[in-house]
């Protein structure tokens, strides 16, 4: 058992997976430059010392190296690609949306694409192009599994599952949850660290975790928003509200059963997300609730999200933009009390 930040947990997991399986390798920009940072957020720091031939530093060429990772995966390697900032995936959309998720399907199921794309996300004082939560962009792209570790424990278990999966997996990592240290530390960071057991555990995709039990309302949130939802739930307990917080941990596949069971108990549903509201995670959850949970619901579903604008830079505007603990608490209160 060892206490680790998410960045450390990811690093140790990548290291142990590379030791376990010689087909596993890392590819991306600035991931393994001696004297560098180990990717933008220290996750791969120092791994080039143990694996000089399996840490592939690339030119700044997101579409190119994403396609290279795909080709290598088709030939039996197991790449872990790192895109520095999720926003950069817009440069790689042909490979991410047209090639990687469709290759197995187009082949009639003959091919496998064991590829992991690591995607740092979250609004963090960097303005509009280093801030986006890319999950909702990829939810409609059939053929990708999307996972969101909010804790170091989950980061280890989900990343192990991802690396060992024969399907392409995107792992969304929140910049404020990494616990990166030194020059790469984030202001406004939230502690996502966990005690990591020594055993080789994995977390299956599609298994949500109830982070907090409650009876009045169900809140569904991932990553940073899950932590803020927990804080909101704690503050509301003092006011007598009993809030259940569910962390789906993976968006594709999605653990509908856990959400349904919770809504059946509470009768109310609030979704919280850091990305714009339009066609967001909450939209999918609310639509499914409308289709399949109406008999349980005693109040309209409420979606807490960022507005439909890019992320602004000025700290006061950024604070307004990202759902805060107070905003989440107010939304929950309104849903419960009407």
């Amino acid at each position, binding site marked *: 058992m060892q206490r680790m930040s998410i960045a450390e947990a990811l690093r140790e997991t990548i290291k142990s997976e590379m030791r376990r399986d010689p087909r596993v390798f890392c590819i991306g920009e600035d991931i393994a430059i001696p004297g560098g940072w180990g990717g933008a957020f220290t996750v791969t720091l120092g791994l080039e010392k143990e694996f000089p031939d399996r840490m592939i530093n690339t030119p700044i*060429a997101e579409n190119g190296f994403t396609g290279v990772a795909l080709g290598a995966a088709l030939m039996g390697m197991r790449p872990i690609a790192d895109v520095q900032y999720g926003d950069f995936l817009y440069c790689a959309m042909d490979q991410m949306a047209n090639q990687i998720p469709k290759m197995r399907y187009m082949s009639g199921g003959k091919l496998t694409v064991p590829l992991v794309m690591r995607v740092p996300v979250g609004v963090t004082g960097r303005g509009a192009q280093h801030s986006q939560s890319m999950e909702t962009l990829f939810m409609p792209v059939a053929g990708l599994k999307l996972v969101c570790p909010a804790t170091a424990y989950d980061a280890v278990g989900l990343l192990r599952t991802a690396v060992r999966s024969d399907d392409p997996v995107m792992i969304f990592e929140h910049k404020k949850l990494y616990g990166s240290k030194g020059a790469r530390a984030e202001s406004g960071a939230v502690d996502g660290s966990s005690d990591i057991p020594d055993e080789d555990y994995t977390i299956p995709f*599609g298994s949500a975790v109830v982070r907090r039990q409650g009876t009045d309302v169900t809140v569904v949130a991932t990553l940073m928003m899950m932590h803020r939802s927990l804080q909101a739930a704690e503050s509301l307990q003092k006011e007598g509200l009993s809030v259940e917080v569910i962390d789906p941990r993976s968006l594709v596949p999605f653990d509908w059963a856990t959400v349904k069971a919770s809504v059946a108990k509470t009768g109310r549903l609030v979704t919280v997300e850091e990305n714009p509201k339009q066609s967001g995670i909450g939209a999918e959850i609310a639509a499914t609730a409308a289709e399949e949970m109406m008999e349980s619901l005693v109040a309209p579903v409420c979606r807490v999200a960022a507005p439909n604008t890019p992320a602004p830079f000025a700290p006061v505007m950024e604070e307004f933009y990202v759902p805060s603990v107070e905003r989440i608490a107010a939304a929950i209160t309104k849903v419960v009390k009407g």
Partner: protein
Amino acid sequence: MKADVQTPEFLLGLYRKMLLVRKFEERVKFLFLEGVMPGTIHQYHGQEACAVGVCAALRTDDVITSTHRPHGHALAKGVGVQEMMAELFGKATGCCKGKGGSMHMGDLARGMVPAVAIVGGGVPIGTGCALAFKMKNEPRVAVSFMGDGAVSEGAFHEAVNMGAIWSLPIVYVVENNLYGASTPYRSVMRAETIAERATSYGIPGHRIDGNDVLAVYNAAQAAVTRAREGKGPTLLELMTYRITGHSRRDPCLYQPKEEREAALKNEPIGRFARHLLAGKVADQAALDRIGAELDAEIEVAVKAAMAAPEPRPEDALKDLFVDQQGVKTCNA
């Protein structure tokens, strides 16, 4: 026309393969215009020497990536005529079980990644195949086929640069048929040749007569050998001409009449037949026999494909994930 390997078997093998591609495409075009074949098609008439010459320099376990115009590459690499024909008909017995169709033809067992129908998209993928060969220390080579249009894509630049800096075992083969769809390539690039772009990546680049199958073979053989020896990529620009439409029912009004007529005289199969006859490698009767054998083979494939079972509609839900997690069927 010269070849390092001049045995009659080898030469007639090239001829047979090129003629197979031509006859396959002619039959497919007919079926398509008859209305019995679904979808759309991008055909390879006139470019046969490119695929056949390059693939003759490859081993079965070498890997190619292809384009939206993949039938010639697939046949040249050894994908089966029957599986291809069935795939074009959208049948369960197709090489992609009906999930790929014309533009995603392929069979990795024969060394062909399902064709990539986004221009330039296959170039990074082929480069990644080559990276895997190098990392695993396997003596295999990748070839990324593309058209002249692909070199305007960022994917081309990004991938060729990576192939070059890592000295990967790959050959980048640009089939310059003078038109990206209907746009003349001279109107979208300032440089005289595509081959000269290789200089900017620090790799060799050669412009080759792509309608001379032996010239293509020789250039490919040298580039493949170089790649297999760990000396890195080569860029080959094969000058050729598409003597059919870009896609279905394209009357090619953008191709000047004189250019087209000259191209028809220069098409690779007739040229190679004349070479074989002049060199007394075969007589006309022998060439005709090859043609008749291919006609019969293709007819068998057409009949089999038409008789083959359709996939079940709900098979559309299969083959997305290894474990099928995440496929949510509609509730209705």
